[in-house]
């Protein structure tokens, strides 16, 4: 029991650390990415002893220190309890949901096989959906508790948007669940380990391309990023539901934003790009389709798999940064129209086609 608890705690810490570091790095990547796209230098002020070259490390250190040592203003007339609770309710579900995504296969140490997944649930898909739904509460509470008209607007905009796109997200994931016949995320990743026709990796994208597009769009909308960033539309309602926040609580809202990017990327990777799978890598080593085999030690295989998961997640994070800095913001009626009249019918149609094709293939 003791060692079990220790293993669970270490795995949870690895997953949480991975997410928080990714969120911190993304804060820098987003600034540098926007600078790249707008043809300026960007994010070069934080420096240690005049050396700004290691901008990433400096920004990672300087940002949190600065946020923590700033005054945490609680304006008059706010609901003090809910005002403090909102950033916690916003951040906690994202962390826990990310921990449910497997970041590697089993790691064997002696006779102990450790499943590299912090929250080991056989209904992981439902767990993640439940947690992402909880995210709405943080937005609504933040908007309502602030007692500020702009915050309230941001809060109700955010809640209506998130629940509208959650439908499309749910429908796209049902199609994935049908394809792999499991709600266990680790099972879903393992099912993508085969090769189609001997050479094409059996990743979900080749079975469910429409579901991939749906989850990508709905995921960006769920994390309230451009072109769906109306809840925090800076040019209209200051910062939306976190207008009245400062200091560390503001940082927590900010981190939730980046953590949600990472979560969406992790889900896309797991459902559609084989999670920790490396093409042609089996538990013994590489077995290429042209017949070459390369034996690899167990630890190296595990490291390659974890690395592959991280690279894939990071590629999708970068893609979302690119989207944010290239797309203009939608209008609110367009946003609702798109969610209810395009994504929802497409999701239902995708489900129908998937069901029919499986039945025909089964004969």
């Amino acid at each position, binding site marked *: 029991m003791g060692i*079990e*608890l220790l293993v669970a*705690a270490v*795995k*949870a*810490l690895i997953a*949480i650390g991975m997410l928080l570091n990714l969120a911190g790095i993304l804060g820098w990547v987003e600034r540098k990415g926007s600078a790249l796209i707008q043809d300026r230098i960007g994010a070069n002020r934080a420096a240690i002893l005049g050396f700004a070259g290691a901008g990433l490390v400096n920004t990672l250190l300087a940002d949190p220190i600065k946020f*923590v040592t*700033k*005054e*945490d203003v609680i304006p*008059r007339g706010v609901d003090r309890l809910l005002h*403090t609770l909102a*950033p*916690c309710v916003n951040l*906690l579900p994202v*962390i*826990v949901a990310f921990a449910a995504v497997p970041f590697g296969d089993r790691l064997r140490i002696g006779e102990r096989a450790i499943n590299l997944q*912090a*929250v080991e*649930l056989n209904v992981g*898909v439902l767990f993640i959906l439940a947690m992402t739904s909880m995210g709405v509460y943080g937005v609504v509470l933040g908007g*309502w508790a*602030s*007692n*500020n*008209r*702009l915050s*309230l607007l941001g809060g*109700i905009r955010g*809640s*209506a948007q998130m*629940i*509208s796109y*959650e*439908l499309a997200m749910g*429908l796209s994931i*049902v*199609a994935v*669940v*049908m394809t792999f*016949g*499991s*709600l266990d995320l680790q099972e879903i990743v393992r099912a993508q380990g085969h090769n189609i026709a001997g050479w094409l990796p059996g990743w979900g994208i080749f079975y469910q391309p429409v579901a991939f597009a749906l989850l990508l769009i709905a995921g960006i909308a769920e994390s309230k990023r451009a072109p769906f960033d109306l809840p925090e539309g800076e040019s209209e309602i*200051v910062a939306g539901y976190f207008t009245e926040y400062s200091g560390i*609580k503001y940082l*927590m809202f900010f981190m939730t934003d980046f953590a949600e990017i990472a979560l969406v990327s992790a889900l896309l990777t797991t459902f559609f790009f084989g999670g920790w799978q490396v093409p042609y890598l089996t538990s013994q080593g590489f077995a290429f389709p042209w017949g070459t085999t390369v034996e690899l030690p167990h630890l190296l295989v595990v490291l390659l798999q974890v690395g592959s998961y991280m690279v894939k997640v990071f590629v999708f994070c970068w893609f979302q940064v690119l989207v944010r800095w290239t797309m203009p913001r939608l209008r609110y*009626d367009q946003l*609702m*129209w798109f969610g*209810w*009249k395009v994504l*929802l*019918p497409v999701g*239902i149609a995708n*489900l129908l086609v998937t*069901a029919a094709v*499986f*039945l025909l293939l*089964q004969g």
Partner: protein
Amino acid sequence: MEQALSVLVTFVLAAGLVGVMVNLGRLLGPRRETPAKGDAFECGNPASGPAWGRFSVKFYMTAILFIIFDVEVVFMYPWGVLYRRLGWFGFIEMMVFLAILAIGLLYVWRKGALEWD
């Protein structure tokens, strides 16, 4: 048991982290309250009074529609897991269910509940 343990451990650690974080600002940050700072932020204008009032009924409508459709999506999860084993029976059952869902969506659409203006 092991599954519940991993969920519990992760929740406790994450909640601890979030709890420490939210209180860190109070410990390390300064505290200098001024009347202007305590005002609701409305781009520099004096605050126009409390915000806890009425808001557009459209948001309420969206929430109701969400609950209806989301519950239907939830029903599809167990069906999706077992789909391969259910065969034609499962297919036809779900077609009936999806038809009802689609008719509901069409009705809401025609009624104009999805129009925003």
